[in-house]
């Protein structure tokens, strides 16, 4: 009998544990702390934090045969988890403000500039094209879109990208206001917008998800699964005849998918993959992406204000970035802070849902164009 072997088997937990693992466990605890104390997107940051801890205790998503590896293969490699989350999100989004004011959809395009701006910055810093694009897609400011695109282009970066996407998304009330104040005058922020929407029939609400699915799938086929699942959830909700299914989408499906997505994304954050300069770059560039989105959105808002001779409050440009519904609520609040009777929430939500659509379209186009360019880059 060889007692050394036996002892080493028993103590394998300690022998494979590194300082890097300990550091990552601290990172996991910090993420859980942000979720619990600050309530920053807790439904995602808490499972990500816990998954990060597990990844550094021998239960990573890459450990063949481990339960988190099973979940990773079942839901991340197949892309099912982000898509199932989108089914639930679709069932919770109300597109009627956007349908009532369709011109708002333009704001959803401007707010995607951060994706491309960050791509260029990342290229300047020397990242490879697939990596630079994956970092850029943090600028979609939409968890499932970021995860979907990154898992296709640079799966080894999934962890930090998801952490950046969800952390900054919950930091929007801290990131955006200074930029808003800097870029708009008090007079601009006080612009009131009349809200006399066209009536939107139930039939329009039902046609909308079908038409959008067809149109976006043709323009940006790489975004097709994302838009299809988002619109499926919306159709289940607005049609009003399949309450059982929309209930399943809004509850069992999205809750289970969110828990498993968070855990498995967290479980990719092993010390050897996470602790390196690239991660720091991702976190810094991700923040820049958010800022560029906001700046571009506000500039476009100011343009629309100029074109309409002051009928558009530029603040609603800042919520064309998606991050539904936090961004919309924030823009409305900023306007109300200047003038308590200025109620622009409906316009902000129109712009915000436009941003949600724009993010998916921009993410899908990015994926397609990068895939088309990759063979040409040396």
């Amino acid at each position: 009998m060889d007692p050394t072997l036996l002892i080493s088997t028993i103590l394998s937990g300690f022998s494979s544990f590194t300082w890097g693992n300990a550091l990552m466990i601290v990172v996991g605890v910090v993420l859980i702390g942000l979720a619990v104390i600050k309530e920053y997107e807790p439904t995602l940051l808490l499972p990500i934090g816990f998954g990060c801890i597990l990844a550094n205790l021998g239960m990573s998503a890459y450990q063949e045969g481990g339960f988190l590896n099973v979940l990773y293969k079942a839901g991340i490699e197949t892309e099912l988890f982000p898509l199932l989350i989108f089914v639930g999100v679709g069932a919770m989004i109300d597109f009627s403000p956007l349908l009532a004011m369709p011109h708002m959809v333009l704001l959803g395009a401007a707010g995607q500039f951060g994706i491309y701006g960050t791509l260029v910055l990342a290229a300047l810093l020397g990242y490879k094209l697939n990596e630079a694009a994956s970092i850029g897609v943090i600028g979609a400011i939409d968890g499932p879109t970021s995860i979907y695109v990154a898992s296709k282009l640079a799966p080894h970066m999934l962890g930090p990208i998801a952490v950046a996407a969800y952390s900054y998304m919950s930091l929007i009330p801290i990131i955006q206001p200074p930029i808003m104040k800097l870029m708009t005058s008090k007079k601009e922020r006080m612009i009131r917008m009349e809200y006399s929407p066209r009536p939107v029939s139930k039939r329009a609400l039902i046609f909308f998800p079908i038409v959008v699915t067809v149109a976006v799938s043709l323009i940006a086929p790489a975004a097709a699964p994302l838009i299809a699942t988002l619109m499926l959830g919306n159709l289940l909700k607005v049609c009003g005849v399949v309450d059982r299914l929309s209930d399943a989408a809004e509850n069992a499906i999205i809750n289970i998918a969110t828990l498993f997505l968070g855990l498995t994304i967290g479980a990719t954050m092993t010390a050897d993959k996470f602790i390196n300069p690239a991660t720091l770059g991702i976190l810094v560039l991700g923040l820049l992406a958010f800022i560029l989105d906001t700046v571009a959105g506000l500039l476009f808002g100011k343009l629309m204000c100029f074109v309409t001779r002051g009928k558009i409050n530029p603040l609603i440009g800042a919520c064309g970035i998606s991050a539904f519904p936090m961004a919309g609520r924030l823009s409305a609040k900023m306007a109300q802070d200047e003038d308590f009777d200025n109620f622009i929430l409906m316009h902000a939500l129109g712009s915000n849902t436009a941003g949600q659509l724009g993010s998916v379209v921009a993410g899908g186009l990015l994926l397609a164009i990068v895939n088309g360019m990759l063979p040409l880059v040396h």
Partner: protein
Amino acid sequence: MSVLTASLIITAIGMGLVFVGVLLLWALMEGIVRLTAGTDKEEGEKEESEEVKIPGLDVRKQRVAAVAVAFALSVKQRMVRQAEPTEGNALSAWQMVRYASRLSRRASLFNRMK
């Protein structure tokens, strides 16, 4: 081609196509809303016919009564909603949106009445 050149080309094409896509969505939305305009009318008429069913009261009083009932119901509903467990900021954001959407529907009703 260098990564930087590629990224600049991608930015040009990408942002261009995003705007093209969004303009297309605008056109489609205009189309959908216009083609389906007025399809909810029948329901609206039904609601109005319900309004005048109570006998022995002139229309103005009935409207007042209807508003009172609606107000009472809305207060009740809000109390029920407040009793529900809330899940941090996330849920309350969604509640805000639902509330706003209800406002929106009410607003479009007023527009139709005009």
